[in-house]
């Protein structure tokens, strides 16, 4: 066997991404350029960061519904501290990152110690974070702080007359770090083991409690970081920012080939899962006549295809083991 079967979903994701991009290039003039490719990263950097955190949670067999709200809360807290209280960004950014991590830590601790389903706990977290946004303010807070506008407008030139933003750089660093953590550290291996079977992981003497809580902390941190990037992107704080983002994130992770039951999947797959969503949106905007709701329908269809594909693959694996 030339190719390990566990890479098949990731390769399918990548092939699909390449195919969609090529199809778009043939169909629309001006589609095939480095800048269009780079814009996928520029417009989706916050989604990439969130999805990386979500991948760890899903790999461990859980789910985190609070990510979108934590992003909104981060933009809101950053905006109010910087704009209304005049705090320097050097203090605010680390502060919101810590806040997101603590938020995730608390959810993880409740999930683990009180044995409540992650779905419900993170749902409560989602309500809480979204509600806290409105406690701060019901209106949009626009940021005109010099540091934030500077970061938002900085373009890093690339060969081929294209550019990326600082947010893209942050997202790429997060992806690289996540790949390292997932595959080359003890923590990463424990996450996979936990998702495979919590009982077995416990019996093997792996630090289940610590890992489980860490996974949610990591997701909280990623959401907060995505929130910081989102603040750069929007230059405002608003309680309605990133509504429904948790769905986009989960969809990206699933399209990336990660099994929602846990234990199987790759960070790289998630990365391309996000890019596929970006390509769909780009194609729809290039098409011009198609409306935005087609994005949702196509993503729903893709979800269906990928879930079915995984189902077929895992069913085949099960029969080979039996035989």
């Amino acid at each position, binding site marked *: 066997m030339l190719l390990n079967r566990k890479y098949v979903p990731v390769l399918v994701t990548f092939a699909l991404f390449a195919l969609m991009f090529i199809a778009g290039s043939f169909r629309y003039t001006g589609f095939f350029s480095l800048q269009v490719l780079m814009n996928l990263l520029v417009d989706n950097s916050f989604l990439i960061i969130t999805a990386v955190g979500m991948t760890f949670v899903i790999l461990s067999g859980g789910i985190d519904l609070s990510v979108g709200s934590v992003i909104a809360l981060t933009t809101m807290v950053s905006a109010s501290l910087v704009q209304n209280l005049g705090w320097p960004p050097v203090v605010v950014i680390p502060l919101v990152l810590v806040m997101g991590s603590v938020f995730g830590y608390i959810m993880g601790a409740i999930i683990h110690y009180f044995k409540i389903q992650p779905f419900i706990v993170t749902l*409560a977290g989602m309500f809480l974070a979204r509600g806290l946004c409105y*406690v701060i303010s019901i209106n949009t807070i626009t940021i005109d702080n010099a540091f934030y506008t500077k970061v938002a407008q900085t373009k890093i030139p690339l060969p081929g007359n294209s550019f990326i933003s600082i947010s893209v750089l942050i997202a790429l660093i997060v992806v690289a770090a996540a790949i390292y953590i997932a595959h080359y550290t003890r923590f990463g291996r424990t996450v996979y083991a936990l998702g495979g079977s919590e009982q077995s992981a416990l019996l093997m003497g792996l630090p289940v409690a610590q890992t489980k809580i860490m996974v949610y902390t990591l997701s909280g941190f990623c959401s907060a970081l995505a929130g910081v990037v989102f603040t750069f992107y929007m230059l405002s704080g608003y309680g309605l920012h990133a509504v429904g983002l948790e769905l986009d994130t989960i969809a990206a992770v699933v399209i990336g080939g990660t099994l929602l039951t846990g234990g199987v999947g790759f960070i790289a797959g998630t990365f391309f899962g996000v890019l596929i969503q970006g390509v769909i949106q780009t194609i729809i905007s290039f098409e011009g006549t198609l409306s935005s709701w087609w994005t949702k*329908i196509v993503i729903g269809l893709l979800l269906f295809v990928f879930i079915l594909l995984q189902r077929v693959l895992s069913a085949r694996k099960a029969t080979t083991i039996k035989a």
Partner: protein
Amino acid sequence: MKNQLFKHHLFWPVTMLAALLLFNLIYSPDFFKIVLREGHLYGSLIDILNFGAPLILVAIGMTLVIATKGIDLSVGSIVAISGAVACMMISKGADQSSLSLVLTAIAAALGLSLVLGLWNGFLVTGAGIQPIIATLILMVAGRGIAQLVTSGQIITVSSDTYEYIGTGSLATLPFSIFVVAFMLIIASLLTRRTALGLFIESVGSNPKASLLSGVRSSVVILAVYIFCGLCAGIAGLLLSSNVSSADGNNAGLWYELDAILAVVIGGTSLNGGRFYLMGTVIGALIIQTLTTTIYMIGVPPEITLVVKAFVVLAVCLVQSEAFRQSLVRRWKTRHYPGEKEVVRRAS
């Protein structure tokens, strides 16, 4: 006797609802006042029932799905689709108030809801996909479909006949209450007077064992998802007819979460195997009363979310075995000052 009362599954939900209502009564003495004006009953309690009707409906369907250890995330989208289809068909008609047109529209909307429920059920039993993922597909795509039906706009209808469903009244009470009561009675009769309820619970606690003992798990699961789709469809009709318009974007947004919350508050465990329809109804009423209360005290309505978060957490913690045990442990040690000493000597 006293213990039995505490142990009854409706004890905590009812206590919570009573506490909320009591708070309202103290805050505003005429909260319970119901007046008869022009043949209609008016009052906060009637409003809670009326506005809570769609949520109760969705939650009833959700209860049965959760009882089979499943979950249906797509109900919010089905609510939007059903309202969109009905309003779109009525708005295309020449005479919007004609009874036959409205009935056809309702039939089409409910038929589509049944099909969507069947789709969910098929994915769960036929394709063997985890319920949370299987219904996630329709949750994402369904919202797009609803927007496709309405072309991304808010469709308004001016049909007296259609409006009756959501705003009309029968025997001085809002018509929607009767719709809910009808569905609740059907669901209770089917599950508690026939073996169906037992089948649902057995499939929820152990699908394999129930299959081996002769219960057709797949048919049972298919049936509950179809029923859940139907409930969501009716809720969509109630909602859209109440405001005489369909909004593919926002109708039924977050309904799945509220419905799951209502089910959990009502005492039905997400682990399946047991369900309490009355508990769910009370759970939904608690959520609606909470919203009304928050509006009434004049706190910005956005704060509702924060309160809801704490309610969810409190309810889940109370239901969590681990949490109760840790509380009991702490309570016991408090009455036993020398415990540390004894433990050290003993070991």
